[in-house]
């Protein structure tokens, strides 16, 4: 079917979806972008701080290889290395491309791209457009896609919801079932490949830094249709967010990248105005504990430290779960130029001006490292073969995933400013493979019997009819709130098996109560109620994946912190010792005396733990429950070793 116009359905109008649509149209394909709302409004716009690329604009000796290492180490070695390496090597090209598209990246005195520092690295590697980099990148890609729509090669279906994949008798994806959110019509789109670029699942937690549309429903539906879901338990908690009723708004890592300092009063009962507290009575806990990376330790580390300060040391500001993030030592002009947007957001939502008074912040659910399991085609140089049809393909043939909806790039913890990169990278990188996959098909979607599509359509029609007939006593929004509370209370920063088991039971109860939900609105015009109930159902199943994965993984890795299984790294441990240890082991002469006391034991524990747990968690839908198995991680390029940031 080489001669036919290649048609792809892309679900999601964020960075990954738009990047793919653009690339696909450029290669003479026809892309249909399905979006829950108008393009330009996707959650990618919320990304603030920037996008990483080792261009080494500051002559610090930065290279893509160092970017690769930082990313792998930041993710606690759980990411597949060839993918991450390829992404880091593509990053400079991606930044240049976005620059050519007109993104207003901040510039140096000579007019070149400017870079700032972000967490988990010692290099100035993050390109940024003020404090709304995500928004600027989305707009640039959106403009290109709009141009293709104008030219007729791209189509958009805004205000449409993806319900599920159309699978033929062989289990190959042949299209998508689409729900028009205005007219309430349910119909199918034929396509030789369907790509889910549907973002993360923050809404499972009720309140997070995520947007309202980030329910994870599309990915969960794919999981329930047989796709594997990987590393669900790895949920990034962003250390700095603004507490709120409806949402925990992000305070970008760039606030710390530009010099923001995190502190609490040394005395927990000190209720003075923060600016009146003298320097020696402030506890800059991140700077004291991590003299090398200071306030820019990776997010998992910072979140745990803040949690520890508030709940274990009772040093939260005025006894509340909050710490100060202080920028008041910087000039107003500097702050306006580099961080204006996010500081205004803080002012708008709290009434206080961060230029005058330290911000009060607390960690919040931010990003899912996990997502749909996807494949990749490595080449012989430790990188990716961009022509491989396997790239980004889920375990369902013809169904792809990209962006936050996949799982491959961030391991157990994502570094700041790598998400925008991974989204654009996956979208651009996979285009060739998707086209090659289409070429390889013997039959196109057009050759498939119409009953396959009719069946899929009637399945979802009756599903929605059933939902509309739900007339119990439970309010779905209240139930969602309760689900979020369960997740926030038990499956957050610090995890223990008792709470996780409790959460599992409570989720089961929610699932039982779900059957008694009432569909609040049964009209057939712009009615979000049935869709929400369907999404809630998906969120319940997603919360099970997260919770069960967390319960089963008895270790401490990246964002998944179980104190009971902390290997207690000796304070004076140096990660290089571990490499030495491995070498000695290879030659069969490990000598106890060569390492400081306790270090060898620790390294043995570490090695043993890695053998057991340095694995991808894979959840599959069986009998209404996630069935968990583990898969090897590709660590062919860098030897996994203990992380250390001080």
């Amino acid at each position, binding site marked *: 079917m080489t001669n036919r116009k290649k048609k792809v359905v892309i679900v999601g109008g964020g960075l990954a979806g738009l990047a793919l649509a653009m*690339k696909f149209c*450029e290669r003479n394909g026809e892309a249909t972008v399905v979006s829950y*709302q*108008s*393009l*330009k*409004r*996707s*959650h990618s*716009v*919320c990304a603030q701080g920037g996008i990483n690329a080792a261009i080494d604009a500051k002559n610090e000796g930065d290279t893509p290889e160092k970017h690769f290492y930082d990313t792998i180490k930041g993710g606690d070695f759980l990411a597949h290395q060839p993918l991450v390496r390829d992404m880091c090597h593509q990053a400079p090209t991606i930044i*240049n*491309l976005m*620059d*050519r*598209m*007109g993104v*207003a990246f*901040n*510039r*140096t005195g000579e*007019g*070149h*791209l*400017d870079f700032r520092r972000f967490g988990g690295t010692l290099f100035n590697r993050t390109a940024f*457009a*003020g404090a*709304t980099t995500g*928004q*600027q990148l989305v*707009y640039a890609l959106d*403009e*290109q896609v*709009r*141009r293709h*729509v*104008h030219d007729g090669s791209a189509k958009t279906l805004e205000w449409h919801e993806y319900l599920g994949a159309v699978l033929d008798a062989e289990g190959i994806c042949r299209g998508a079932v689409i729900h028009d959110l205005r007219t309430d019509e349910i119909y199918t789109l034929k396509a030789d490949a369907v790509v889910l670029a549907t973002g993360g699942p923050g809404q499972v937690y009720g309140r997070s830094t995520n*947007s*309202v*549309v980030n329910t994870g429903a599309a990915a969960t539906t794919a999981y329930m249709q047989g796709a594997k879901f990987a590393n669900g338990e790895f949920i990034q908690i962003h250390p700095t967010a603004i*507490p*709120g*009723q*409806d*949402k925990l*708004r*992000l305070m970008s890592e760039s606030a710390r990248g530009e010099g923001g300092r995190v502190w609490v009063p040394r005395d927990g009962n000190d209720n003075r105005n923060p600016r009146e507290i003298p320097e020696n009575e402030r506890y800059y806990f991140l700077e004291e504990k991590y003299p090398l990376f200071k306030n820019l330790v990776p997010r998992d580390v910072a979140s745990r430290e803040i949690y520890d300060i508030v709940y274990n040391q009772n040093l939260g500001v005025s006894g509340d779960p909050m710490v100060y993030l202080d920028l008041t030592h910087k000039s107003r002009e500097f702050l306006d130029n580099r961080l204006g*947007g996010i500081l205004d*957001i803080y002012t*708008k939502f709290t*009434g206080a001006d961060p230029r005058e008074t330290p911000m009060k912040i607390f960690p919040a659910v931010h990003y899912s490292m996990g997502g749909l399991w996807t494949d990749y085609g490595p080449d012989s140089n430790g990188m990716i073969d961009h022509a491989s049809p396997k790239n980004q393909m889920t375990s369902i043939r013809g169904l792809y995933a990209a962006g936050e909806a996949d799982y491959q790039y961030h391991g157990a913890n994502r570094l700041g400013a790598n998400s925008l990169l991974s989204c654009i990278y996956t979208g651009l990188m996979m285009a060739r493979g998707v086209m090659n996959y289409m070429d390889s098909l013997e039959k196109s979607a057009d050759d498939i019997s119409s009953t396959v599509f009719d069946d899929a359509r009637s399945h979802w029609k009756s599903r929605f009819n059933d939902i509309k007939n739900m007339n119990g006593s439970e*309010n779905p*929004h*209240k139930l969602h709130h309760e689900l979020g509370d369960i997740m926030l209370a038990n499956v957050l920063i610090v995890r223990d098996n008792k709470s996780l088991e409790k959460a599992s039971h409570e989720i089961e109860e929610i699932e039982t109560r779900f059957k008694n939900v009432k569909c*609040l*609105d049964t*009209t057939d*015009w*712009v*009615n979000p109620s049935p869709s929400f109930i369907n999404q809630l159902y998906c969120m319940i199943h997603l919360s099970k994946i997260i919770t069960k994965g967390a319960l089963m993984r008895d270790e401490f890795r990246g964002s998944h912190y179980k104190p009971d299984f902390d290997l207690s790294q000796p304070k004076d441990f140096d990660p290089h010792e571990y490499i030495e240890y491995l070498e000695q082991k290879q030659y069969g002469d490990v000598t106890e005396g060569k390492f400081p006391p306790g270090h060898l034991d620790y390294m043995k524990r570490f090695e043993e733990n890695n053998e057991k747990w340095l694995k991808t968690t894979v959840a599959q839908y069986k009998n209404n429950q996630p069935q968990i198995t583990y898969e090897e991680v590709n660590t062919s390029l860098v030897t996994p070793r203990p992380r250390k940031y001080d």
Partner: protein
Amino acid sequence: MTEKTTTIKIKRQDKPGSPSYWQTFEVPDKPFANIISCLMDIQKTPTTEDGKTVNPVTWDCNCLEEVCGSCTMLINGQVRQACTALVDNLKKPIVLEPMSKFPVLRDLQVDRERMFDNLKKVKAWIEIDGSHDIGAGPIMPDQDRAKRYVMSECMTCGCCLEACPQFTQDNSFLGAATFNQVRLFNLHPSGEMKKEDRLDAIMGEGGITDCGNAQVCVEVCPKNIPLTESIADISRQTTWQMIKNLLIK
């Protein structure tokens, strides 16, 4: 225990073209509450003040941090985003209405497709040769970048158009948001190559000359985009274009 509540009056409409009606809800007071959290509370208890259970109010929203542009509506008669409208700062009872310059879809939801269509009309993009690796973009002074950045923060929310006395549902006025895009792209070294096309697109009915300089747009813009400066700048560009068309071509 009697909870403290806030009264919210909402103008509702079931379908495009169907008559609108008002309903009043009592929403419990909470710290840091905004209009979105109130609407979420109404979803959880969709009961009016006189105890009638009704369909929950529908509205658009997404990011809830004033960067996506979805949740624009009239709050106490003024157009703004619902997410940044903190209940504590609003006059009570609070009155919510859908935007009046766009067709209502349902309740507080309107169809802003016209704004997105306008982006196509003025070619609000840079015509790159392709997304393959062809090196760095043009060098640009940071002050030019800063100028563009402020303009490029436009989130197509529609505030400027709702508040514009020249913009109505039945005329074709492009409005401040679109003119701002023309300036944004004409300011870019590569975007400038299509400058004349963009200017031609706004030199007609509904174009730049239909601006009446009421300058409400710039007052209501949540992103503080210098819209009136953009309009004047674009006016200058079209003036030169006119002179060129008349005298040189």
